[in-house]
Structure formats: C-alpha cells, structure tokens
C-alpha cells in the first residue's frame, strides 16, 4: 500500500485537519464528532441540509458543504457510515429552527445510523430524510436492501441546497430532493480495486484485462466481471443499463461523469465524448454536464455515470450559485 498518510488508522481524523486548514473561514470542523459544517451556520431561516457517510468518497460529502449546498457533513471511518452521535452533533451545529433534511445514501448502515440519530434527537427542529438509491447495477426488490445511493447524491445535494438557500420550507426541500432522486440513475465500472488504509491490501483483485461492472463506491464487487474493452464499449456498458431503466428522452438531462479517484481527467474527457455520442444516438439531450472527481472510492480507477431527468425548475436550481470546495459557480 502506497499512500500519503501518517497512521493508517487515523486517516479520517488527519484529513479533517487539512480540510479545516484549506478552507479556513469557509468551513468549520468539529474534530470530536468529525463534522464539517458551514462557518456561518446556523443560517437564519434556512432549512439545514445534513449528509454524511463513510469517508473515501471525497469531495463527497465534506467537500460539498457551503452556501448553496450542504450545511454539514459527517465523516465516517473510511467506507463506514457515521454513527448517530455524529449526525446529532451535525444537526446541532446547523439547526436554525427551520427544519433539517438528512440526505442519506441507501446503504443498510447509513440508513440505520441516520435513523437512530432521529430516534435519539431531543428537541431541535423537525427532521425529514431523503434516501438516495440511483444505482441501476443493483437489482431492486422488496426483499433486499434495494438499490445503492451513488452519484445522484451529488445532484440532490446541489439542487436541494439551492432550494433551501431560496428559503423553501422543509417539506418543499425534501420534495425537490426526492424528485431529483426519483429521476436519477447511475452506473459505475472499476478498472482497479482500492485499498482501505487500515486494511493495507486491495479489497479485490482484477486481472489486467478485467473490468468490474456495476461496482459500488466502497469497493464492493459489482454486478459482474467483464473483459475491459475500448472506451466506447465501456461507455455502452454505462449508458445502456441507465437508459433502459428510465426514459431520458424529451427532457433536459443533467449528466455527471465522475472519476473514482485514480482515473486521470484525460480519460474522463475521452469517456465523456463516447457517452455523449451514445446519448445523442438515443435522443437524450444533455443540458448540463459535470466531468471530474465528485464521488470517488479512494484511488480506484474507473468512473460512474449519473443522469438526471430534469425540468426547467431543476435546471434553475442547478444553475443557482454554489460555493463549496467541490462544486463552485456563481459565487
């Protein structure tokens, strides 16, 4: 394992020291509870957006804290959901009395820990929860844990953040967040594994010509393994399951192609060219695009594609100013 770390057991704690130093005056860090929050929180009259999850997906979630997006993010251990105490502390730091929205990726651990936090909360604003579950790699069923929440979470946080910044009330912010999630689908592929620092060994092995298709963001194995083909073939493997699952024609689409952490931008650009070509052939009209590292899995090589079927209102919220380390425009 080659990593820029001190003690592999303390990676999250140490990284938060860096986040605080890098964004002084913009972000505050509660080191005891590992919470990153807006330096100006609580923001009067505003619904507070709180998210969080395992670490290792940076900039998600701490890098999306700031005006126009999240109020606070709880950093769990690497790939391990945060604990209820952390969520409670986050809520307390940012609660302005106008309600709190928890944005939770659909993983058993994340859902249970955020649920327990809500059960344990005493006093404070009402809390609503939106669970994201956009990963088409996972077969959905009433009897299983359901689809995982991946890339759409970034779009939910951006758009719900804009709605909250516009002083919509809790149920309206939760509604728009759910609408984004319901209209979002994602799919990822990995070319290499990642190594959890405290483990020191890659989570899985892939042969030189193998691809993990439908990989999770925690190094969970994917839907299947395949032979690594050309970028154009990989693009098909991303686009087809997404567009088979939901009709993206006839609406403006927000497209996000996120690297998984170890893939250089030149490959992401190249992949996006292939994806755009296939989407064009399928009559999908992309109105907004993000290409870069937004939801990652440590140093894994690969990428995930997220499409959101939007409308004028969602595009306006998307275009609204945002000022976070990971996403910034208009501010």
């Amino acid at each position, binding site marked *: 394992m080659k990593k820029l770390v001190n003690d592999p057991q303390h990676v999250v704690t140490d990284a938060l020291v860096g986040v605080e130093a890098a964004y002084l005056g913009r972000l505050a860090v509660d080191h005891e509870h590992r919470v990153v929050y807006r330096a100006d929180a609580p923001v009067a009259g505003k619904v507070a957006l709180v998210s969080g999850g395992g670490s290792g997906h940076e900039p998600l979630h701490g890098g999306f804290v700031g005006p126009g997006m999240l109020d606070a993010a709880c950093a769990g*251990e690497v790939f*391990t959901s945060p604990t209820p105490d952390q969520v409670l502390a986050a809520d307390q730091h940012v609660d302005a009395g106008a309600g709190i929205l928890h944005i939770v990726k659909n993983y058993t651990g994340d859902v249970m820990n955020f649920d327990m936090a809500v059960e344990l909360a005493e006093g404070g604003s009402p809390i609503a929860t939106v669970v994201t579950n956009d990963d088409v790699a996972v077969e959905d069923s009433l009897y299983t844990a359901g689809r995982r929440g991946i890339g759409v979470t970034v779009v939910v946080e951006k758009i719900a953040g804009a709605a909250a910044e516009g002083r919509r009330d809790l149920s309206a912010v939760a509604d728009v967040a759910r609408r984004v999630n319901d209209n979002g689908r994602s799919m990822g592929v990995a070319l290499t594994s990642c190594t959890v620092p405290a483990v020191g060994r890659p989570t899985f092995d892939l042969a030189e010509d193998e691809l993990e298709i439908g990989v999770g963001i925690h190094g*969970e194995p994917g839907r299947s393994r395949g032979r690594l083909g050309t970028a154009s073939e990989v693009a098909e493997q991303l686009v087809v399951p997404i567009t088979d699952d939901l009709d993206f024609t006839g609406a403006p689409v927000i497209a996000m192609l996120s690297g998984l952490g170890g893939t250089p931008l030149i490959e992401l650009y190249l992949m996006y060219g292939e994806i755009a070509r296939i989407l064009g052939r399928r009559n999908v009209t992309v109105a907004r695009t993000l290409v870069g590292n937004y939801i990652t899995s440590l140093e894994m090589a690969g990428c995930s594609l997220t499409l959101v079927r939007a409308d004028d209102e969602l595009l306006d919220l998307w275009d609204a100013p945002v000022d976070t380390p990971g996403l910034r425009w208009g501010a």
Partner: protein
Amino acid sequence: MGSRADPGTVEVAQLVAWLETFGRLVHEERDHLTALDAAIGDADHGLNLDRGMRAVVERLHADRPATVDALFKTVGMTLVSTVGGASGPLYGTFFLRFGTAAGPVDELDAAGLATALRAGVGGVVARGKAEPGDKTMVDALEPAVTAYERAVGSGPEHAAAAASEAAEAGRDATIPMVARKGRASYLAERSAGHLDPGATSSALLLRALADALAGTLPETTDGRA
C-alpha cells in the same frame, strides 16, 4: 466459582468477562472478519467491530456499572457511537435490548439470560428487518438463542455451550446462501459461496459467552464440563 453465591446464576463480573472475551476474539479475528467482508462487502467489518469492542473494554475498565441494564446500556451506546456501518446499530441494539430486558439486577439466572438474549436478537431483527436465510448475523444469532432456550434447564453454562455450537452451525450455513440484506445483497448470486462476516462475528459472540461461563458454574448431571 470462588465466592459465588448461587452456581446457577451469572453475575455482572461474568458478563464483563463475556464482553472482554468477545473483544479479544474480535481482535484476534479482526483481519479474518475484514477479509470475509472484502469478499462480499467493503472490507471493514473486523476493523469496525474491533474499534467498537476496544472502546467498550476501555470504558468498562474505567467505570464498570453495577447492574446488568446499566452495563449493557453502556456497551450498546458505546458500540452505537464508535462502530458505524451496519454492525454498529445492530450490535448496539442487541446489547441495549439485552440490558433493558434484564433490568436493574446484579445477576441473571439461566432463564433471565434466555430472556435477555431473545430480546437482543429481537432488537437486531427489528432494526435490520432480516429474516433467517438472508445471510446476515441473524443466521447465527437466531438459532443460537433457540438452542440456548432449549437447553436452559441444564443451566447457563451448558445452554451457552449449546448456543455457541448452534451459532457456529448457523454461521457455516450462510456459505451457500444468497444475501438478501446488507451490502452483500448487491452481489446477488455472486454472494453465494462465502461466509457472512456478521454471522461469523456473531458466532464469536456466542463462543465468548460459552467460554466466559465455562468452568465457572458447577458441572451438571450429564457430566459435561
């Protein structure tokens, strides 16, 4: 044994020994548990539980509650606040419910332990909604508690030994299962052929109970140690 008043009951000290033994076993098996989780999950189960149980043992060294409910409230809350992931709330709920069912007593008899264990498993099921066969810790816990209940008449030591055996059988039975809950469920058919990490740690929990009680209670008529 030593100064124990009633050989058929389990005192707080023995319950603490259970937790310490569990902590030790988890630490010894940490890498194995994590490797199991790497195969069908996200490679953190051993790390998570080891972090939590070390916190529990430290906490108990600093301040050991006198009653069973207080003891397990501390244990449960410590796990909830240090483990994270799926296993934090699940093991946390197990111990919280265990304590609440036991009540403010300073010892448990065989039946009292059965009630507490049953309540603990009930908590895991209530929190995680898993059924037997879903390839989770429930597949070790549920048969273990049932075995304990069946053997409750032979006293806590033997009932715990039976529970441990049943937990290990339940753990091994997860190998062919296709996961329907937790992170392994994303793998669907690919999850078959692997031990479930949570069932494996749950088997350690019952093994720790059996070990902690072994030899501390008098032999029963069937001559087993």
